[in-house]
């Protein structure tokens, strides 16, 4: 459980850490689009090289990025198996493509959370989706919910580990086949959910006592302006995005 680190922030002074969070969210969405418009192997290779370069530039250790999403690789694997079984022709190749796409998408999402604090993610979501306020959608609440979810992932992981150790010390057996393991996990899940609900209640009280939702529009600690680095990153990303579109058009 300690190995599950998705959603954790990696403190560093790397260039990706300094970028505007709203821009990073936009890059994330465009990168995922680029993954799905790249149908050729050349296109996919470009996507893979790009994400490798991003990891190097971010100064986040490669190991941390891998650890961050490795527990979710199973999802990519299951999806690719389903694709393989449902494709009559070239099933293995289609499965491989799906696997690469999903792994790259997980990797770039992990890179976003590793280089952006949950509060910055919230600010980014709030800025990017502010146009939805016209339709009375509570963008601020959605953004803060995402931020708190990201913040509490490691907290709940630690809690799960404590419960696991407590149950083990009382003789719980987590070994055996899959069915046995699944049934023994219940002894972790029940107290974990109870604790999560208690925490949620206390957090809500704490937020309310700190005037959350008291009326005025929430402001931010930092005014999220666009700096030189953001312009440079946008130009580089635009070049990459146009290149993947060109590759797609050329190899159609």
């Amino acid at each position, binding site marked *: 459980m300690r190995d599950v680190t998705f959603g954790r922030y990696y*403190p560093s002074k790397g260039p990706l850490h300094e970028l505007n969070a709203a821009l990073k969210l936009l890059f994330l969405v465009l990168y995922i689009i680029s993954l799905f418009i790249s149908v050729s192997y050349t296109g996919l290779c470009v996507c893979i090289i790009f994400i490798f370069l991003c990891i190097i530039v971010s100064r986040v250790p490669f190991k941390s990025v891998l650890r961050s999403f490795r527990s979710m690789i199973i999802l990519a694997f299951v999806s690719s198996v389903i694709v393989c079984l449902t494709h009559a022709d070239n099933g293995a190749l289609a499965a491989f493509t799906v696997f690469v796409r999903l792994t790259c998408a997980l990797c770039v999402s992990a890179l976003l959370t590793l280089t952006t604090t949950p509060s910055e993610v919230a600010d980014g979501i709030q800025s990017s989706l502010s146009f939805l306020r016209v339709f009375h959608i509570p963008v601020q609440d959605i953004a803060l919910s995402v931020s708190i979810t990201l913040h509490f992932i490691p907290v709940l992981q630690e809690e799960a580990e404590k419960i696991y150790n407590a149950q083990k010390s009382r003789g719980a057996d987590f070994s055996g086949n899959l069915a046995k393991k699944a049934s023994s996990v219940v002894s972790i899940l029940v107290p974990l959910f109870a604790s999560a609900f208690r925490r949620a209640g206390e957090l809500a009280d704490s937020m309310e006592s700190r005037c959350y939702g*008291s009326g005025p529009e929430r402001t*931010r600690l930092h005014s999220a302006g666009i700096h030189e680095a953001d312009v440079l990153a946008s130009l580089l990303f635009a070049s990459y995005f146009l290149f993947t579109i060109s590759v797609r058009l050329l190899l159609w």
Partner: protein
Amino acid sequence: MGAVIRARGICTSYRTGFGLRNISFEIEEGSFVCITGPNGGGKSTLAKVLNGLVSLTGGTLEVCGLDVNDENNLDGVRRQLGLVFQNPDNQIVSVVVKEDVAFGPCNIGLEPEEVAKRTSEALSLVGMSEYASSPVTALSGGQKQLVSLAGILAFRPRIMVLDEITSMIDPVERRKILSILKDLVKNHGITVLFITHRFEECLAADRLLYIEDGVLVADGRPEDVLRSVIKASDRREENA
């Protein structure tokens, strides 16, 4: 100095049966008051009532002249009276220290420059300035609790209600927090209501309230209140 809290016959009712029963007291501005009593006695309920998190079913409660039972006053009450809970992990909303401290000032719509000013001011008051950019996960329990304190101080409150904030931390950090609280009372005129189970912490206060079964059993100088509580407890044991 006048009273910043005026409670007259306050009552609350909980579905579980626990609640406050006809409690009356006044708290003078700039005083350091401890509240103690057995578990389930109503101390935390009182803290929540003072912050408007739990509604009254009877009596009147004024915080800095504002009626807490009036929903329109809640925002004003919460700006004047900050509440810190027992477990810092359940009240810290951000990963980075300064972002968490800034959460409150951001909620009341202050300009970013003012938010930054108050954040650094609050962190300096609790001696955590050097950790402003640190991740909260890298801090000890006591340091996390200081971040929670700073989060309330960033409102520049007149009153702070602290609900067993030293119960989960080691003795050294506990002493540090106590000395910071004394400094806040002495040099910044903040009124502190400190809920605790520890008698040695009660003795550091100017006044002690003892709450049991939702009733204010004793109110006075800490030494006198503790002496009477111990005597009563001994009598109960003898009778049993």
